[in-house]
């Protein structure tokens, strides 16, 4: 007998099989994931968890006898009162005889299992990307990082690299055989000695000539030549901003009902998830407005009631105020999503447009406007273009801004709309689809 300790073996032996399984059931898992996420709060929306998919898609068929019909015969334990010849009413097909019940899960309608956070999000956000934003994020970034990248032959004196310069100087001096100061000194002393002692003239003459030659050479070959000088070269790299703030703006005036708020919440959840994938840190700011705007927490944002008129621009001003106070543009990526039923005080439209176009959009990575409606609302024939106050105002935002707007009436529209807004699109295409 021998014992082997396998505990330290690399785990995850089933990983490859799991991948295959997920790939196989991809379509259904994706659908299940989207359904599951609708019931969660914004910040939990991205956690993994248990999902169930229809068993049909991952069913493994085999040849087996039907569970119905024919003459069946069971041997069961635990007889208490039956005697031969008794009759027993047939139990419901669903309950059935225990012995025929499925214990492998094959017969069940649903297949339940757990997804990790990673898997969950991958499926949830599949195919979504923000190419425009990614670019803008780097290009517009004001903070750059300098890092040393080798040496150059030109540069400001402050960045001279002394060691490197001296290294070059030394190799040049050696290569060109510049006489060393010690040698010259030794020669000079030798000459002096001979002069004192009155040595042979020829010898003295030869040494003097030699000394002369060496001194000239020393003068001709400088200790440091301009070609030796090296400067530390710096290279600039744009520092990606790893933080993002997401502004949720919502109209909470009386005309927004529960259904509309629910739609808005779903949209915000998606955006939050999405940003969370891209950035190390995501802040969420909730601003609700009626005729005045307030910053509130999530609970209040979605669930408390408020009455009043509707002045959209207040929310935009509030947002800028918060940006100025807490989210300097150089450090934060700013995203905003606004949900509204489209109501606005007519006189406010011009202010909204100006504020949005001139102040907010220039500093935003992306601004999405979702107009929520009732699901029983009639589809507008033809163009399908809503004609609310706000919609008409926003239509005038020029195309080259990072701005998108969509109309959502039903829960099931949310995800498609989100996908449409953030779908991968060809380089350079306008963000606005309208």
């Amino acid at each position, binding site marked *: *007998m021998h014992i082997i*300790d396998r505990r330290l073996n690399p785990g995850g032996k089933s990983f490859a*099989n799991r991948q295959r399984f997920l790939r196989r059931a991809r379509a259904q898992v994706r659908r299940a994931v989207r359904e599951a996420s609708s019931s969660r709060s914004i910040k939990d929306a991205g956690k993994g968890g248990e999902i169930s998919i229809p068993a049909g898609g991952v069913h493994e068929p085999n040849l087996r*006898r039907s569970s119905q019909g024919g003459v*069946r015969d069971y041997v069961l334990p635990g007889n208490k009162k039956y005697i031969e010849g008794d009759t027993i009413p047939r139990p419901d097909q669903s309950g059935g005889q225990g012995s025929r019940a499925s214990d492998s899960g094959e017969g069940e309608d649903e297949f339940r299992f*757990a997804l990790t956070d990673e898997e969950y999000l991958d499926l949830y956000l599949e195919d979504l990307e923000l190419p425009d934003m990614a670019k803008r994020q780097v290009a517009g970034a004001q903070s750059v990082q300098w890092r040393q990248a080798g040496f150059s032959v030109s540069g400001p004196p402050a960045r001279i690299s002394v060691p490197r310069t001296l290294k070059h100087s030394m190799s040049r001096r050696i290569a060109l055989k510049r006489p060393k100061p010690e040698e010259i000194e030794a020669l000079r002393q030798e000459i002096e000695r001979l002069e004192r002692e009155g040595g042979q003239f020829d010898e003295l003459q030869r040494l003097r000539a030699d000394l002369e030659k060496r001194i000239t050479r020393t003068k001709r070959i400088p200790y440091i030549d301009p070609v030796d000088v090296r400067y530390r070269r710096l290279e600039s790299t744009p520092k990606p901003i790893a933080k993002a703030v997401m502004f949720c703006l919502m109209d909470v005036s009386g005309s927004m009902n529960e259904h509309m708020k629910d739609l808005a919440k779903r949209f915000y959840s998606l955006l939050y998830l999405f940003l969370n994938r891209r950035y190390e840190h995501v802040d969420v700011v909730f601003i609700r407005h009626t005729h005045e705007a307030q910053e509130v927490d999530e609970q209040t944002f979605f669930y408390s009631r408020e009455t009043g008129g509707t002045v959209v621009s207040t929310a935009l001003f509030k947002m800028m105020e918060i940006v100025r106070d807490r989210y300097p543009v150089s450090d934060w990526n700013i995203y905003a999503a606004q949900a509204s039923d489209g109501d606005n005080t007519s006189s406010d439209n011009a202010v909204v447009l100006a504020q949005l176009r001139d102040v907010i959009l220039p500093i935003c990575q992306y601004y999405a406007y979702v107009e929520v409606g009732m699901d029983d609302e009639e589809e507008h024939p033809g163009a399908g273009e809503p004609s609310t106050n706000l919609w008409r105002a926003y239509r005038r935002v020029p195309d080259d801004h990072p701005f998108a707007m969509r109309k959502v009436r039903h829960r099931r529209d949310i995800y498609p709309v989100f996908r449409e807004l953030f779908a991968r699109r060809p380089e350079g295409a306008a963000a606005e689809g309208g």
Partner: protein
Amino acid sequence: MTMLADSKLLFTGPDWDFDLIKRVHEACGDIAIKEMGLDPYPNQIEVITVEQMLDAYASTGMPLFYRHWSFGKHFARNEALYRKGYQGLAYEIVINSNPCIVYIMEENSATMQTLVLAHAGYGHSHFFKNNYVFKQWTDADGILDYLEFARGFIAKCEDRYGQEEVERMLDAAHALQSHGVHRFPRKRMPDLRSEEKREEERRRHGEQLFNDLWRTVPVSGKRKRSRDEDERRKALLGLPEENLLYFLEKTAPRLKPWQREVLRIVRLINQYFYPQRQTKVMNEGCATFVHHRVMNRLHEKGQIDDGAFLEFLHSHTSVVLQPAFDDRRFGGINPYALGFAMCCDIERVCTNPTEEDREWMGDIAGNGDPYGTLRDIWANYRDESFVSQFLSPRVIREFGLFRVVDDEDEEEMRVAAIHDERGYRKIKRALSHHYDIAYRDPDIQIVDVDLAGDRKLILTHRVLDGVLLEENDTEKVLQQVADLWGYDVKLVEQDDSGAPLAEHTAAPRRPFV
């Protein structure tokens, strides 16, 4: 260790280490081998974690397996059930190989490790080594090497032909795996002298060259098909054949060699598991009986303390619990419970028989050698024959077994037999029938290939008791058969008289070529 110097205790408390496992293994061996006369394989004990146990579950307990999504599915399912606490994990997994590999979980207490070693390392291992079904069908020495080969081969195929193609092939093979075993030993050529062998090879070679499937030369005139011709054709193709995978592997005209090899791999691995399906009750009964006896003896000999013994009893009783049919926990007859009860009963009959026992099991009653008798039974029976021979009236009474017949034509179900004089035999027969794999799996055979026409493959299902095949699944599986075969396939469900009850057909949609 806080063991007293003169104490014989193997351990105290729940902690264990490798030395302790060794000591326990030896102590169990003293009882199992010296007292009970068991003859197990040498053991290789591997300590694993929960995660690894779940891994092992997913690949039908084997330490290595080729890759396929269905294993991922099972893993996901077991994991979900386990994490939510709906399902505990087995304390061990044992593999029928030589040496016998026993996985034990690190979380088990010392008592549980002792139980596991006795159960798997001696009980199952003895059964694997000695039972005739295993001897006949499985190659304990070669299985791990074969799995290694299978895994490598499938991986290579995936590289070469793409994951999707291979997956499709495996799906098809898995769909047919319940009909991919040889139920009876095949005729082996008698060991002939070398010249005869060569002749045989020549003949086989000739057969391979002449495959009637490929005859494209039109047959002159209108040939009348004679009975002889039919017979000859069937004999040539080895029909009828119940091993669908085998037939397709050998005969399907359009498969590539690697595809045949995939079918073969699935078939052989499935064949390896076939004995386990036939001996579930006996195998577990044997292992449970052995661990029960070993633990009791250890306790008697003072090698485990009362606390450990109580822990063992707690675990043992939940293993052999048989919920009644109207209990919420009921999920069929518990093979551990039935097997253990029957083994204990056999021991009792051998040593202390009643009049009834002498009447029912005269040949072993009172023979005074319970271990010898059990060893003999473990070696020479499978569930079906075990139940039909050794299910005593006493066990039937203890379990309160009764037989219910559910005829679709009748208003209500009828109790056909209970645990009384008139019922014993009926119950015994009925239960033994349930453990007969040939009865549980539908009897499906390939009967003919229409060579003269469109090469349609014809299968039959011999319907028992009017129970037809599950329709949705059958359609799906038949589709796989058609894709494998490459031409149309027809499955006829017929009763004993040959009258057709239902018919399924499939045409290849994405044939494997």
